[in-house]
C-alpha cells in the first residue's frame, strides 16, 4: 500500500485527495494527462470480421458429427404434467438423445415452459421428434392479467410460495424473502423521513397512476450453446454475458468439477441482461450431448426467445409528490405492483429514491405473479419504468406550481454533474422556445419537447484478473476472460493496454472469451468497463514495470533510477542514457515478460457514487391519428473518463433507440383466453426500425472520480433510463394531456387527447 495525492473533479473544478493505493495498482490518471489513444474515436477491432461474416459467433459453431437440439414447450399456461412419453420420438430416424425436463407431477406455470428435449442429426428431424413426444397435462386454472391476478379467488400461480430466480444482472438485494398473499408478494419497503409530514408541508400535491408493458430483450443472436464432451471434459461455445457463470452452472448441474468445463464466447450478438448462466436450454444441450456421446447445438428460435428467455416486467405505479410554493420537493411516495410473470423482483423505486433531493421518501414494491414467462434483468432493471412515472410526476408538479419543469428539476437536483447536463441539453434542444414551437405548419400536428434525468451507479467491482505479456519483439498481448457482447469490450481492452504500454493498437493482441484465461467480470450492471479497464491497466503497468526493472539491471542501477516516457526508457539525471522500446524488449528472454494483476478495490475516497445523465426529446404528434414521430433526442451523459469515444456514443445511441422502441412500440401481448403470447415474433412484436430513428446528438462530460485507476464508469444502462420518460413528457407537452401508459400507441394518444377535451374519461 502507498499513499498518494490524486486530483479529482469535473468541469475544471478539481480537488486533491489523499488516496491509499494497493501494491501494483497505478494511481488514477491525472486530469491533465494527455492520451495518445484513450478517449479517441477507435473503430471496433473486430468490425471487419463481423462485417465480412468471418467472425464466428457461438450460433455459427459447427463441429463434426454435431447433433441439433430442440426443446418441447408447454402450450398450456397452467397444468400439472401427468406423463411424458418419449417412445415415439426415440424411434424416429436421426434421433440420438431424448430427455425429460418437466418430470411427471411437476407444475407448468406459463405457456412456453420447457417440458422435454431431443437431439437429432438435423434441425428438421429434431423438430419433428419434439412434436412426437406425447405429454399428458392436467389443466389448471390460470391468470395472465395482473389486475385479475390480485383479485380474491384468482387462480394461484404458486400453490406453495414463489421461486424467484435472480441473476448477475439484477439489482442488489433481489433475493430477500418477502411475505406473500394470494398472487401478491411484498412489499419491499423503504422510508426516509416522514412522507405524511412532507405532504403536510407541501403547497402543491399531485398523484397519478402509470402503467408500463412487458418488453422483451430480443437480442439478435438467440440463447443457446454448443456442447461437446471429450471423456469427462466438457467444452462449450455459448452466447453469454458471463462465460464463468455458464461454466460454474454447467459444472454444478452436470456434476463435474469446474476444472473440467471450458466455455468460449468469442463474438456475441447481444444480451441486454437475459444471458447469464447456462439456463435450462444450455443444461439440456449438455445433457443431450452426454447422452448421445456427440456434440449438440441447441439454439432457440425467435418464438422461444420471446416466450421464455426473460423480459422487462410490466408495472402499475402510483406516485404522489408534494412541493412548497417556491419549488422545494417535500415528499415523494411510490407504490408499485410489478408483474414479471412467474418471477418476482419487479421493483421500480430506484429513480424515486435516488434522483431528486427530498427529505421524505416512502416506497413500497409488490410483485404480482401471473402465468406468464419470467422477467429477468433487462438493461437498467426497474429504472426506465420508474423514471417514466417519476418524471411525469415532476412535470405535473411543476405545472401545478406554475414553474418551468427544467428549473424545477435543477432546483431539486443534488447532482452538480446533472445540473450541468440539464443546462447543456436544454440549450441544444431549444428548451426556452419549446412552447412557442408547439404549432407546426400542419394544423393537426403538434410539436412537443420533454426531458428526463438518468441515474446509474459507479459499479466496477474487484475480482477480475488480467495478464499482460510483453514479447521480445516489442509486441504485447492481453489475456482476459471477458466476453464482448457487441459493446466494444475487446477494443476497450486493447486501448487501455496500448495506452499504458505506449504501443500502437496494431502491436497489441487481445485474447478474450475463454474461461481458460484469467477471469474477467460478467457483463451486467454496466460493470464491465469499470471492472476490466483498471485490471488491464494494472497488468500492463506491472508488465511495463518488469521491463523497466530489466532495463535497470542492464544499466546496473536501481529501478527507481529509471524513467519511462513515450516509449523510451531513460536514466534519472543522465539524459544521454536512453533505450527505446524495441531495444529494451530485445533484452527480454524468449518468453518475454508477463504480469497478472487483480482488480483493486474501489477507492472509497472517490469523488461520487452516482452516474448522472439528462435526455431531451422533440416529438411531433398527429392529434387526429395519434401517431408519434420522435424527431430529435439530445443526450448529455457522464461515464467517468471515456475510453473509446466512438463506442461510448454507440452505446448511448443504442440505449436511446431501445428506449424509443419501448416508449412507442414494444408490447408483449398475451391472449386472455389461453394465456399464450399472440405476437411471439418480430413482426407483430414491434421494434423500432431505421425509418423510426430520430437524429441523436450525444454529449459526454468527463468526470475524474478516482474510484478506479482509469476513472471509468459503464454507460450501457444509464443511456436507456430516461428515454421513454422524456418522450412521454414530450408527447404530453405536444398534446396538452398527460400520457400515463406505455407504449404510446395511436390508441393511447387519441385516448389522452379525448380525455383532455373532456370526452371519454
Amino acid at each position, binding site marked *: 500500500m502507498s499513499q498518494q495525492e490524486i486530483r479529482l473533479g469535473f468541469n475544471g473544478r478539481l480537488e486533491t485527495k489523499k488516496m491509499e493505493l494497493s501494491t501494483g495498482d497505478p494511481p488514477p490518471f491525472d486530469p491533465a494527462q494527455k492520451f495518445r489513444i484513450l478517449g479517441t474515436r477507435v473503430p471496433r477491432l473486430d468490425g471487419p470480421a463481423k462485417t465480412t461474416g468471418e467472425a464466428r459467433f457461438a450460433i455459427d459453431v459447427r463441429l463434426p458429427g454435431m447433433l441439433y437440439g430442440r426443446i418441447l414447450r408447454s*402450450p398450456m399456461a397452467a397444468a400439472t404434467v401427468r406423463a411424458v412419453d418419449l417412445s415415439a420420438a426415440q424411434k424416429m430416424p436421426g434421433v440420438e438423445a431424448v430427455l425429460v425436463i418437466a418430470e411427471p407431477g411437476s407444475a407448468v406455470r406459463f405457456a412456453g415452459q420447457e417440458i422435454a428435449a431431443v437431439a437429432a442429426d438435423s434441425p*428438421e428431424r429434431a423438430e419433428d421428434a419434439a412434436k412426437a413426444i406425447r405429454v399428458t397435462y392436467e389443466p389448471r386454472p390460470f391468470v395472465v392479467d395482473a389486475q385479475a391476478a390480485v383479485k380474491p379467488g384468482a387462480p394461484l400461480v404458486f400453490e406453495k410460495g414463489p421461486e424467484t430466480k435472480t441473476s448477475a444482472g439484477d439489482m442488489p438485494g433481489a433475493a430477500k424473502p418477502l411475505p406473500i398473499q394470494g398472487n401478491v408478494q411484498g412489499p419491499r419497503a423503504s422510508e426516509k423521513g416522514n412522507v405524511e409530514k412532507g405532504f403536510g408541508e407541501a403547497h402543491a400535491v399531485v398523484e397519478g397512476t402509470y402503467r408500463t408493458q412487458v418488453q422483451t430483450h430480443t437480442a439478435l443472436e438467440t440463447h443457446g450453446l454448443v456442447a461437446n464432451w471429450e471423456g469427462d471434459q466438457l467444452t462449450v461455445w455459448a452466447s453469454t454475458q458471463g462465460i464463468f457463470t455458464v461454466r460454474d452452472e454447467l459444472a454444478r448441474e452436470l456434476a463435474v468439477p469446474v476444472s473440467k468445463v471450458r466455455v468460449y464466447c468469442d463474438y456475441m450478438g447481444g444480451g441486454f441482461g437475459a444471458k447469464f448462466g447456462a439456463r435450462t436450454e444450455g443444461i439440456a444441450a449438455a445433457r443431450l450431448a452426454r447422452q448421445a456421446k456427440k456434440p449438440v447445438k441447441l439454439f432457440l428460435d425467435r418464438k422461444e426467445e420471446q416466450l421464455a428467455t426473460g423480459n422487462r416486467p410490466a408495472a402499475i405505479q402510483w406516485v404522489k409528490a408534494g412541493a412548497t410554493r417556491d419549488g422545494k420537493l417535500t415528499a415523494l411516495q411510490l407504490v408499485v405492483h410489478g408483474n414479471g410473470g412467474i418471477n418476482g423482483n419487479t421493483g421500480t423505486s430506484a429513480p424515486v429514491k435516488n434522483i431528486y433531493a427530498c427529505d421524505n421518501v416512502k416506497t413500497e414494491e409488490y410483485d404480482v405473479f401471473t402465468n406468464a414467462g419470467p422477467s429477468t434483468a433487462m438493461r437498467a432493471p426497474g429504472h426506465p419504468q420508474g423514471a417514466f412515472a417519476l418524471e411525469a410526476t415532476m412535470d405535473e408538479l411543476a405545472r401545478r406550481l406554475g414553474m418551468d419543469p427544467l428549473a424545477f428539476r435543477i432546483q431539486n437536483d443534488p447532482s452538480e454533474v446533472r445540473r450541468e447536463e440539464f443546462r447543456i441539453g436544454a440549450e441544444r434542444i431549444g428548451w426556452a422556445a419549446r412552447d412557442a414551437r408547439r404549432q407546426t405548419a400542419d394544423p393537426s400536428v403538434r410539436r412537443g419537447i420533454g426531458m428526463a434525468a438518468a441515474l446509474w451507479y459507479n459499479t466496477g467491482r474487484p475480482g477480475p484478473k488480467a495478464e499482460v505479456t510483453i514479447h521480445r519483439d516489442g509486441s504485447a498481448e492481453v489475456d482476459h476472460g471477458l466476453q464482448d457482447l457487441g459493446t466494444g469490450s475487446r477494443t476497450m481492452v486493447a486501448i487501455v493496454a496500448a495506452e499504458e504500454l505506449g504501443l500502437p493498437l496494431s502491436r497489441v493482441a487481445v485474447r478474450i472469451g475463454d474461461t481458460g484465461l484469467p477471469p474477467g467480470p460478467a457483463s451486467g450492471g454496466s460493470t464491465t468497463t469499470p471492472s476490466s479497464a483498471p485490471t488491464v491497466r494494472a497488468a500492463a503497468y506491472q508488465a511495463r514495470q518488469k521491463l523497466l526493472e530489466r532495463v535497470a539491471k542492464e544499466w546496473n542501477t536501481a529501478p527507481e533510477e529509471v524513467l519511462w516516457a513515450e516509449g523510451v526508457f531513460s536514466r534519472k539525471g543522465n539524459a544521454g542514457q536512453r533505450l527505446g522500446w524495441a531495444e529494451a524488449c530485445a533484452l527480454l528472454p524468449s518468453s518475454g515478460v508477463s504480469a497478472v494483476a487483480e482488480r483493486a478495490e474501489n477507492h472509497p475516497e472517490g469523488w461520487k457514487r452516482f452516474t448522472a445523465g439528462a435526455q431531451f426529446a422533440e416529438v411531433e404528434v398527429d392529434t*387526429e*391519428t*395519434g*401517431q408519434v*414521430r420522435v424527431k430529435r433526442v439530445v443526450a448529455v451523459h457522464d461515464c467517468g473518463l471515456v475510453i473509446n469515444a466512438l463506442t461510448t456514443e454507440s452505446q448511448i445511441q443504442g440505449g436511446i433507440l431501445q428506449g424509443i422502441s419501448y416508449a*412507442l*412500440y414494444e408490447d408483449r*401481448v*398475451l*391472449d*386472455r*383466453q*389461453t394465456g*399464450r403470447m*399472440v*405476437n*411471439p415474433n418480430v*413482426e*407483430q412484436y*414491434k421494434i*423500432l*426500425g*431505421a*425509418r*423510426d430513428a430520430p437524429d441523436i446528438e450525444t454529449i459526454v462530460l468527463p468526470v475524474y472520480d478516482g474510484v478506479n485507476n482509469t476513472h471509468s464508469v459503464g454507460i450501457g444502462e444509464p443511456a436507456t433510463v430516461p428515454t421513454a420518460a422524456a418522450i412521454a413528457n414530450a408527447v404530453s407537452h405536444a398534446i396538452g394531456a398527460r400520457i400515463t401508459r406505455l407504449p404510446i*400507441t*395511436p*390508441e393511447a394518444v*387519441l*385516448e389522452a387527447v379525448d380525455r383532455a377535451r373532456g370526452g371519454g374519461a
Partner: protein
Amino acid sequence: MNSFTLISARSLPEAAREAARPKTAVKAGGVDLVDRMKEGLDAPERVVSIARISGLDRIEAGPPAHLGALATLGALASNEGLRRHYPALAAAAGEAATPQIRHMATLGGNLCQRPRCWYYRLAEFDCRKKGGSDCFALEGENRFHAIFDTEQICVCVHPSATGAALLAYGATLHTVSRKGRRDIAIEDFFVGPDPDPTRENRLGPGEIIESVSLRAPSSETRSAYRKLKEKESFDWPLVEVCVVLRLSGGTISDPRVVLGHVAQVPWRSKEAEAVLAGARPSPELYRKASEAAVSAARPLSQNAYKVQLARVALERSLRDALT
C-alpha cells in the same frame, strides 16, 4: 416444415395441370407461402413454382394497363407509366412491407396472401380460418382486427394493399386453370368468411392468376392512396385508403372508395361514394363522406380507435385527390 416435392413449371398450361392435383400449393415469390409452411399452417405435398415462367412479370402501363402476376411490388412501384397513369396503385405497391420483401413479393401473391391475424398465424390456435370452431379474436386480443362486418364468424382483416388499390381502379383478373381461362372482376374476387372462412377469394382449386388489367383512366380521373401505421419501418397498416374518382366541371362522378385493414375483404364504402357522387369538392364534403364511410363500423372490444383512423385517413385522401 413438412417434406414436399417442388415442381418448377415452365409454362402456364403445365403449371395449371400440376396445380390441379390434390394437396398442391402454387408458389410465386414464396414470401407468404414459405412462412405459412414453416409454421405448419400449410403442409402441401407438392409445391408448383411459377416463378420461372417467362413473360409473367411483364408490366404494360398502357393505359390501359396489363400487369403480369409475377410483377414484383418493387417493379410496380418504380414503373414510370404506372406512377403517371395509376399513381394510387404504384403508391400502394411502393409503401407495402419493406424494400427486401417488395423485391420478392409479386402482384399475384399479394392478392392471394392470407391474413395476418395473430391467431391464424400461430399453429396452436385452431381458429375458424384453419377450419377450427372458434374465432379467438372475437373475445380476445383484437386491437388490429376488423371494424366492419364484425358480426361475422371470423374478424380478421384482409392484408392486400394492391387489392385495395385494384378494387378502387375497378380492375379485372385473368386466371388460368385446367378448365381454361376466365376473367374475374375484382369486385367478385374477394369473399368474406361466410360460409367458408378458410378462403379469402373465389379462385378455384388449382386456379392461378395470370395477369391483371386496368381500364384507361380519363383525363379527369383523380386518385389518392394513404395508410396509417404505428411504425414507419416494417409495419402493417392500421388502416389504408384508396380513392379513385372523376372530377369534371367541378363535380365528382364515378367515385370508388376503398378502405383496407378494416374488414375481411378490401372494403368498398358505398356510403362514402353516395355522398361524393354528384357533389362538389369541399372540406365539408370530405368530412361528411368520411363520416358516412365509418357510420356502419361496429368495432370490437379493443379497436374502436381504428374507426377514427379510418375516418381521418379517408378525409385526408379525399383532400389529396381533389385539391
